[in-house]
């Protein structure tokens, strides 16, 4: 038996198939979820993939946040289910207030696609347990609105509580405050980041295979929980 990891498809989701592939390569079972269904099909964890849900119109993630599937995802996330938001998924999580802060237009105003170095700042989440603290990884980054912002108090609190999960290394690609690339909620089960680990799982198509750890992490976290 293997962990069942749901991948939500919103209208305009683009990296959903890639997230499913990454889950499969990590030995878990990908389960497609549809934005109109409240039913999560008994998955153990959920990924909100990258893309341009609803064209990124209004604000990235703003419309997707109100889809039926998100009602259940929000409930389950509060109840402790591992939820990962990648890029657009991160934006949806912020719009849903499952994660603090917001993502704004890149400071240089361009969409940017590049291989990005990151430091893993926290391994105590179901999505990062297979990394070591301080580990440097390189995965693709691709977005137009990836600037992470929050007020100073929130930023201080995130740092103090160890909820900055990833930080950009090298040149800050988008003006994110304090080089923040990803954060988690208080409990640590909900993680969001702008870069795309699902595009770094095969040597042939990614810059590295550094992203695979996300998916092996959740597979083993889920199994550990099921066993205990």
């Amino acid at each position, binding site marked *: 038996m293997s962990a069942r990891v749901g991948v939500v498809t919103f209208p305009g989701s683009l990296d959903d198939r890639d997230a499913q592939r990454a889950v499969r390569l990590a030995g878990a079972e990908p389960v497609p979820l549809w934005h109109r269904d409240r039913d999560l099909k008994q998955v153990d964890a959920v990924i909100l993939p990258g893309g341009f849900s609803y064209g990124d119109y*209004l*604000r990235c993630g*703003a419309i997707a946040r*109100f889809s039926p599937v998100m009602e259940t995802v929000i409930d389950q996330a509060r109840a402790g289910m591992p939820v990962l938001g990648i890029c657009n998924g991160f934006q949806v999580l*912020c*719009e849903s207030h499952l994660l*603090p*802060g*917001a993502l*704004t*237009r*890149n*400071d*240089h*105003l361009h969409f940017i696609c590049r291989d990005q170095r990151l430091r893993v700042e926290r391994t105590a989440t179901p999505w990062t347990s297979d990394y070591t603290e301080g580990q440097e990884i390189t995965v693709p980054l691709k977005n137009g609105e990836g*600037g992470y*912002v*929050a*007020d100073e108090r929130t930023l201080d609190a995130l740092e103090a509580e160890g909820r900055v999960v990833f930080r950009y290394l090298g040149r800050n690609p988008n*003006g994110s405050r304090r080089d923040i690339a990803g954060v988690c909620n208080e409990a640590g089960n909900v993680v969001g980041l702008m870069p795309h680990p699902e595009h770094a799982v095969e040597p042939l198509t990614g810059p590295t295979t550094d992203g695979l750890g996300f998916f092996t992490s959740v597979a083993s976290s889920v199994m550990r929980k099921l066993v205990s």
Partner: protein
Amino acid sequence: MARVVVEVMLKPEILDPQGQAVQRALPRLGFEGVTDVRQGKRFELELDGPADEAALARVRDMAETFLANTVIEDYTVRVEDAGDTPDLAAAAPAGETAQ
């Protein structure tokens, strides 16, 4: 039939790269004397009924939960005559805001 306008601007403490880019570009284009630029969004909503208090309350709710992300944005709701053509687009005096 009424037109309600919702204006959404980034909160003052949030960096506005678009506004800054505009401001930086202005002197190059020969426009001096602009000390700050902020860029925001403007929504024109056509209502199928009158813009009475109940309708405005609904629009405010819409702005609060949906049109603006109040983590980073402020909004303003105001009524415009439905008959407004763009070249008469003076705003009605009634304005309000929430943060």
